[in-house]
């Protein structure tokens, strides 16, 4: 199977009080298409920074990130927006839904940015929400009136809106109880089982990591396994 993600000699340094600190320090890794990979490590080990670099939310100091054959470190402006919109779907630990939009409208947003026809948008958004168990009137509720589990499921539906090839999830179960955590994990896992997407998840939870097909352990910005 082809590699969906290839990271080579990736480095990200931050300026702290006049000296450079490497949050990600020379990482090399590869994830195959349809694989469910997890990145584990202690707080401050560089997990979230690595995920931000993979999602093009931040730019690396050096190194390359090739996703589906395209080096995203060379992308800028509209091409970078197109990559974030179409190739990846990002799931955040604290959901990051737009508070004054309903669940349905939040899922519509990426399709709006992709300029899909309005009818197609609504039908797909409703279908995605139903797929993660948000049905009926719940789709018209705003995030403030939803539980954490519901919000995370809406967040996953939003990440899937534009048929991304790669799902990046930063602690997706971190704020959820075990039942909701298990449910969210299953949704992500099913995506890889059906071959619809490759999933890379950052987690503290060793149990979840143990159920993924590949585990990368990070310490002080470097991979240990």
């Amino acid at each position, binding site marked *: 199977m082809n590699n969906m993600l290839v990271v080579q000699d990736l480095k990200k340094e931050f300026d702290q009080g006049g000296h450079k600190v490497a949050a990600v320090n020379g990482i090399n890794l590869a994830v195959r298409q349809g694989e469910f990979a997890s990145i584990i490590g202690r707080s401050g080990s560089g997990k979230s920074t690595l995920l*931000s670099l993979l*999602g093009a*939310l*931040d*730019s690396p100091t050096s190194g390359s990130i090739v996703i589906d054959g395209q080096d995203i470190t060379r992308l800028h402006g*509209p091409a970078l*927006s*197109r990559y*974030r*919109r*179409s190739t990846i779907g*990002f799931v*955040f630990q604290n959901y*990051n839904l*737009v*508070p004054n939009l309903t669940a349905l409208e939040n899922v519509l*947003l*990426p399709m709006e*940015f*992709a300029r899909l026809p309005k009818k197609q948008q609504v039908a797909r958004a409703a279908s995605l929400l139903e797929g993660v168990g948000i049905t009926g009137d719940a789709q018209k509720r705003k995030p403030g009136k939803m539980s954490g589990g519901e919000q995370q499921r809406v967040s996953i539906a*939003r*990440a899937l809106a*534009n048929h991304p090839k790669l799902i990046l999830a930063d602690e997706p179960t971190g704020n959820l109880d075990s039942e909701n955590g298990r449910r969210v994990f299953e949704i992500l896992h099913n995506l890889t089982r059906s071959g619809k997407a490759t999933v890379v998840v950052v987690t503290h939870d060793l149990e979840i990591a143990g159920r993924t097909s590949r585990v990368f352990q990070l310490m002080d910005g470097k991979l240990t396994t």
Partner: protein
Amino acid sequence: MGRGVDGCANGRGNQSSSRNSCVAALGDRLTTSNSNLVSAIEAGTLGQRRANESGTTSGGSTVPAPSGSPRAMQNFTPPVTITGVNSVNGTSTFGGSSLSWTSGQAFDASKDISEAVVGKNLATKNNLSVGSTFKAYGATIKVVGIYDAGNDFANNGVFMSLVTLQRLSSQSGSITSAAATVDSADNLATATTAIKEALGSKADVTSSQDAADQLVAPLSSVAHISLLSLLGAVTAGAVIILLAMLMIVRERRREIGVMKAIGARNGSIMWQFMVEAITLTTLALVVGLGIGIAAARPITDSLVSTSVGSTQSTQTAVGPGSGPRGMGPGAALRSVGTSSAQTLTNVQASVGWPALVLGMLAALSIAVLGSAIPALIISNIKPAEAMRNE
């Protein structure tokens, strides 16, 4: 003024319209020799001194007497002024005040008719009432109305038809003054020039240009204050909108980061904030315009009355010191002030389409710039940074 002021001297052509008019007048004096009327005004110190010095007064009740004679002082009385006019409505008395009726009504100024209106002081002094008669120039004149002009000198007068007075006083075709009124202060200079050209050397023509300038001066001041207020409001509005949008955009920094993370273009983010700002500004415009239109009249009235008030107080302060009490430039200036106040009371505020459109464009432009600039700054930050530094 002399003879032959066409259309104004003979009772024809006056009041060609409600706003353009020409009132001609012939002034004369009634004394004990040509009338049985007794003046209602006692001689003041100045008049008595003149009587003492000359033993006579021009047009007054004259009794030759040696200088300093007590008899001369007793018999001197100021004359009664009689004025022939071709229009009662446009008539103003000495000092500029207009006539108001205490009883009776006006005579028909367009006809040669032996009727007159008398001032209330003169009527009281001579026991005259509506329907009474008095003698003047050997004719019997019927009193048809009694007026009050607000001051003792004016209330010691008689008004009658111009043509009648011209006939009785053997001054047919003559007038002593004519007052032309123009419809707008803007036309005053043009009208004055035209009248001078038409009359040539037959008459001295003076205009109330200074008075007109004084009339318009408060409005210029109001316009200046309004313009400064407008500039201040626009500047304050621009600063407030810019700061408010900056705050809003900063508060929603994380939201911007999220939108960028899920694929929003910088242009989309800017457009979203501009639409929000335009929507809020449009709502504020509707409310603001409603309040503005409702408040325009009271504010204009207040500004105009304040401006006129300050003009009047200046004029009144100048008046009394500038001439004889109640008769000189002081009185004239007071009348101008009163006239300005009366005219400026009717100033109305109106909001024209150009002002509305310009105001709306200014507000919307400020909203667009005020929202686009902060959104552009924030949208250029990387999503991770925007979400990290909340």
